[in-house]
């Protein structure tokens, strides 16, 4: 087993989140949310899916369209196949003649923009809507279009899966993790997904063997280790303390951290999630968390590939560096464990590009409120949610959420 090592950190964000004492707890609350069922090819346009979740989220919040101050959508022109992809979502997201903007990243990042809009004091109630439809874009094309256009794209070798395979191999080599352990993560999440009514893919009685026997994509990644891109939308209503006063069971944003890593071919190494570690540090400082493994009761991670979950355990400080495999083997992250991870099935259950990270926030909030139905874990008061964007999780955002 290689010796644990420390990550090199060049600089950190300052500002309020890093000042420790100046916390934002009880300033912004999640008061409602909604998800569509995630499907391989939904029988609805993206506009109709957005309309569905907007109406459902507003209904759950007991609000009318008129009550909304600002609307942030999360989508991507390449996924929508349309320049200015937010433009047609003005009406279905309830943004007509309202203050609207778009974050072209995962919805979890769009949520940060909505949080800042509320913290600024200019807005009290914000709606965040995230969507995409994998049935309308070429599976790996948007990822290929993210590559450096002069060199990496021309070689036609790198895409989301081949880049992830390089990362998985690099991580296995550095941390001594076996492909069976990675397959085990996929099996855990697919088994969990069987209890989540909106998940696209699940496998009762899944084990590492079945995962490894699925269609090989790019060694060591097999089909069941890669998240299934699909169609869907989700929405979240955020409120200032004042506006949340009337809400039932508000879930408070206790901290958030966000960091951007170097470009894929410019990273020192792919065997760790440096930007996730920085994001987590900033978030924990804000939320007053010094021992994440014991203080966090449940985590929803945005794992586009199974190995990313093991790497995230380390970056989030659930275990020591390079101990992700051993931590998984301890069973702590299973549904009945000390720190259940992805009880919803995670992104391996359904990955709507631009929405899967926001879905993690929604699932974490559901667990805190006790709304998670069959996959509910008892007594969750503090939960972590993670979202990512970019190849090999280049950009990461972490939230710590808490109940009353």
């Amino acid at each position, binding site marked *: 087993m290689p010796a644990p090592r420390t990550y090199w950190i060049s600089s950190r964000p300052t500002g309020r989140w890093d000042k420790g004492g100046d916390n934002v707890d009880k300033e912004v609350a999640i008061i409602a949310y909604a998800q569509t069922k995630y499907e391989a090819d939904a029988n609805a346009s993206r506009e109709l899916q957005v309309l569905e979740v907007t109406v459902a989220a507003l209904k759950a919040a007991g609000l009318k369209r008129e009550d909304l101050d600002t609307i942030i959508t999360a989508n991507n022109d390449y996924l929508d196949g349309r320049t200015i992809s937010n433009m*047609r979502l003005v009406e279905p997201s309830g943004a*007509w003649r309202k203050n609207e903007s778009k974050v*072209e990243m995962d919805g979890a990042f769009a949520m940060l923009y909505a949080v800042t809009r509320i913290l600024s004091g200019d807005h009290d109630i914000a709606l965040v809507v995230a969507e995409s439809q994998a049935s309308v874009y070429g599976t790996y094309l948007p990822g290929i279009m993210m590559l450096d256009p002069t060199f990496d794209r021309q070689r036609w070798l790198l895409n989301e899966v081949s880049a992830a395979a390089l990362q998985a191999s690099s991580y296995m080599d550095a941390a001594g993790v076996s492909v069976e352990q990675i397959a085990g993560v996929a099996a855990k999440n697919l088994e969990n997904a069987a209890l989540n009514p909106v998940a696209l893919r699940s496998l009762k009685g899944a084990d590492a063997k079945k995962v490894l026997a699925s269609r090989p994509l790019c060694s060591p990644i097999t089909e069941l280790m890669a998240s299934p891109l699909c169609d869907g939308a989700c929405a979240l209503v955020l409120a200032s303390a004042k506006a949340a006063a009337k809400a039932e069971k508000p879930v408070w944003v206790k901290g958030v951290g966000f960091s951007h890593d170097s470009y894929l071919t410019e990273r020192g190494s792919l065997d760790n999630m440096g930007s996730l570690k920085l994001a987590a540090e900033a978030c924990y400082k804000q939320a007053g968390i010094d021992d994440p493994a014991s203080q966090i009761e449940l985590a929803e991670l945005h794992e586009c590939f199974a190995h990313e979950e093991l790497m995230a355990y380390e970056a989030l400080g659930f275990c020591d560096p390079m101990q992700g495999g051993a931590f998984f083997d301890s069973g702590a992250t299973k549904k009945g464990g000390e720190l259940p991870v992805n009880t919803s099935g995670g992104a391996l259950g359904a990955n709507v590009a631009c929405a899967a990270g926001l879905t993690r926030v929604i699932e974490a909030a559901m667990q805190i409120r006790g709304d998670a139905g069959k996959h509910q874990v008892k007594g969750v008061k503090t939960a972590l949610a993670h979202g990512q964007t970019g190849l090999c999780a280049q950009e990461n955002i972490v939230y710590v959420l808490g109940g009353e």
Partner: protein
Amino acid sequence: MAKNEVAVAGVGLSKHVSKRRDVNIAELVWEAVNACYEDAGIKPKDVDAFATGNMPAFEGVNMPEEWGAGHWGAYNKPVLRITTGGTTGGSVAHGGYYLVGSGLYDMVMCIAFEKQSDGNSTMGLNTVALADAAAQLQLGVDPSFIAAFGGGAVGVAVYQASSYMKSSGCTTNHLDKVAALCRNNAALNPYSHLKQPGLTPEEVAKTTLLQYPIRFGHVCPATDGACAMLFTTGEKARKLTDKPAYVLSCASASDEAALVGIAGSGTTNVDPCEQESCKIAAARAYEIAGIKDPRKEIDLAEPYAPFAHQLLMFYERLLLCNEGEAPSILDSGSMNLEGELPVCPSGGVISTNAIGASAMERVAECALQIMGKCGERQVKKEVHKAVAHGWGGAVNLNVVAVLSDEPRR
């Protein structure tokens, strides 16, 4: 009202020309970002967060900051990507206002750019119309009617211009005058694209008619360029610069998506010259900024006008005069550099249009005029309050920001 005072402490612009063959996207952006670091007197390590945006279909790169941001000093920092079409630059600036205003991040570098020579912008824009065209064909609309809206932005602009001329009494002569005013201002701006010193309305009137009433001389160029602005707290801005430009408010509003309503996207925006959402955004921005009478209190306006008629149209929609009055205000000379309410001293979008950056360059020009850094194009009157505007989407998105030489009381 933002918790933190928000101010602009630095502005950087790249060279703006039609084809920058000597640099790639990341290098082009670096010119502006580096200029901004130098202007504000800071280093990349001092920045807490970045906000960026462009129109990705125009260059053919999805999320270009994924490979570019490391070259702009954004290593291991938050990089929030905000894109909203033509309003992108304005939306990124609004992002800077909220990120600083929230108290989460003290120093935010906002970056907006477009390198149109790397791709085909009209092709990129046509993907907007594709969904419309499909729906119209399904409804049995005559394809020749649909084709009338074709040709990217110009097709929509002529419809809007005709409607504006009918409702306001604006003549083609006014369009020529607007073009001459802007191109002459642009000649004094080292960062503008089309510089035409001494251009007269008569010369504009002789340019090719594209589609009535728009002539070649009334239309913006396609530009490669980038703009960067440092947003920070009032306190830090005062340490960095003698005269920061305070951002008093930001507001946006969206009308219904234009032309036809598609399943789930509601009704149709019948008249693209109405721009009700601009009036709503302007009124909201003035309200937050504590401006009671914009006609008296605003000293300078930078409306987003890639087509000549839009300068007059948005002057009205920004509530700076009654509807239909802008053409006569233009005739009075009030919009000139030495006038009472100078408009587009930068030369405007009609002279320089690096699309993703354009709406931010409006905010940047307001800031530079307030800071007194405009050199030859510095307006004669002292600028206390200025309004910056951005427009885009399917002619339905509007963003407005109000800047001032004093923090909000």
